[in-house]
């Protein structure tokens, strides 16, 4: 490429950055928080199901009957109503998530989607800010171009974040598959892939956004504070305005990746592909802005 971008250099910087992330306090804390928060969310839904299945034999019911009861509860109007209220999805979408897909896993993915932007920020806020502050990047600049450093660190952060996600989803799927035995393997694999893609695509724009802010600041803490603020404040602000004025400004959420997150789980392939496309679009915009910022700043 004309600006000196070199795929080999990006790969080297990326793989080093992914491994280095574990050596940093921020990376290790992000991994622990991702696992503990993710497993905590899953636990909130798996434990009641587990207790129900454990108590069933004592009440004279088989595990199969308990599993049927769980399916009946999952497909009930109350659950559908609650999910509709939380996600704002239509009835057919909710029906798809609780009847066509394993309901327990769908609920876990829905709640994880609300946590992923914040967990992603924790693993992506310090792509360059810390090294800009301590002037460490000038040694790297002797060996490669700015674009390779920026893209390499974005790729490394993506790999680290995806690794944490795969570990989390793997643990949940293996447990639900081997211990609870509620769903056939095919359903688990399909829901697992569905959930993983949704969480993966949602994390992309936040990694790129954090990269942009990280290139703007000379302090890792400053970058973290701004990234968390920009991720959380618009959503909180919109919800408060909606609540206070009783107006319907929910469409404004769609100006951010947050507003598209539940479309990533849609049963309608067109809507899902559109949501994937929107996430890639946000990612591209943030990546270009971040790259421009990094190219012209004093290192």
């Amino acid at each position: 490429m004309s600006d000196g971008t070199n795929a080999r250099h990006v790969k080297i910087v990326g793989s080093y950055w992914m491994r280095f992330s574990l050596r940093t306090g921020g990376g290790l804390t992000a991994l622990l928080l991702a696992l503990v928060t993710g497993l905590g969310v899953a636990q909130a839904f798996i434990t009641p199901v587990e207790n129900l299945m454990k108590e069933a034999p004592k009440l004279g019911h088989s595990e199969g009957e308990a599993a049927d009861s769980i399916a009946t509860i999952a497909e009930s109007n109350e659950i559908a109503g609650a999910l509709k209220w939380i996600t704002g999805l239509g009835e057919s979408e909710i029906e798809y998530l609780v009847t066509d897909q394993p309901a327990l896993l769908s609920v876990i993915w829905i709640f994880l989607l609300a946590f992923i932007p914040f967990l992603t920020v924790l693993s992506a806020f310090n792509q360059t800010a810390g090294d800009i502050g301590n002037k460490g990047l000038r040694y790297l600049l002797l060996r490669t171009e700015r674009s390779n450093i920026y893209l390499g660190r974005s790729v490394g952060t993506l790999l680290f974040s995806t690794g944490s996600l795969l570990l989390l989803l793997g643990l949940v799927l293996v447990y639900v598959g081997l211990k609870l035995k509620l769903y056939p393997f095919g359903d688990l694999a399909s829901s697992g892939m569905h959930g993983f893609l949704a969480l993966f695509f949602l994390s992309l724009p936040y990694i790129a956004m954090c990269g942009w802010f990280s290139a703007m600041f000379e302090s890792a803490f400053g970058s973290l504070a701004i990234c968390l603020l920009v991720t959380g404040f618009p959503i909180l602000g919109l919800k408060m305005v909606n609540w206070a004025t009783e107006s319907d400004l929910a469409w404004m959420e769609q100006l951010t990746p947050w507003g598209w997150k539940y479309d990533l789980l849609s049963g309608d392939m067109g809507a899902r592909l559109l949501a994937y496309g929107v996430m890639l679009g946000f990612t591209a915009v943030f990546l270009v802005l971040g790259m421009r910022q990094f190219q012209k700043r004093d290192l």
Partner: protein
Amino acid sequence: MAEGKRPGGLTALAVINFVFSAFSGLGFLGMFVFLAMMKTIETTEGQAGEDARRAIDETGGYDWIIASGVVNALMAVLLLISGIGYLKQKRVMGRMIGSGAAVINLLFSLAFIATVGMQFAMLVGFVYPVLTLILLNTTFKDDLIN
């Protein structure tokens, strides 16, 4: 790795160790509270007493309360020592004792699961010891050499 150049991850592990050490210490003190409660439960009559006794039996009973108290006391000490070891980048105090604490924690959890059965909540308890064991013996292996 150069002496004195402590990676941020190792410092984070040390801080987490200190926090878990304090929790383990509280767990040890909690054992005495449980034992005091059990005396009351043993003499409680009626359905409430029966339900409480059944709940205790299902979570392992008297022996497991004592065992977890002892393990908590041990973990509080080992986590504290290994945390200091991480900060000073010590091989024995950090890597050896840290790995030992993680193995003891895992073995106790496995024994508990074998007795009372697996629950998803227990999975969260595996995260830290497994990560510690992996990180101390791979990522931070060459940092704990003093």
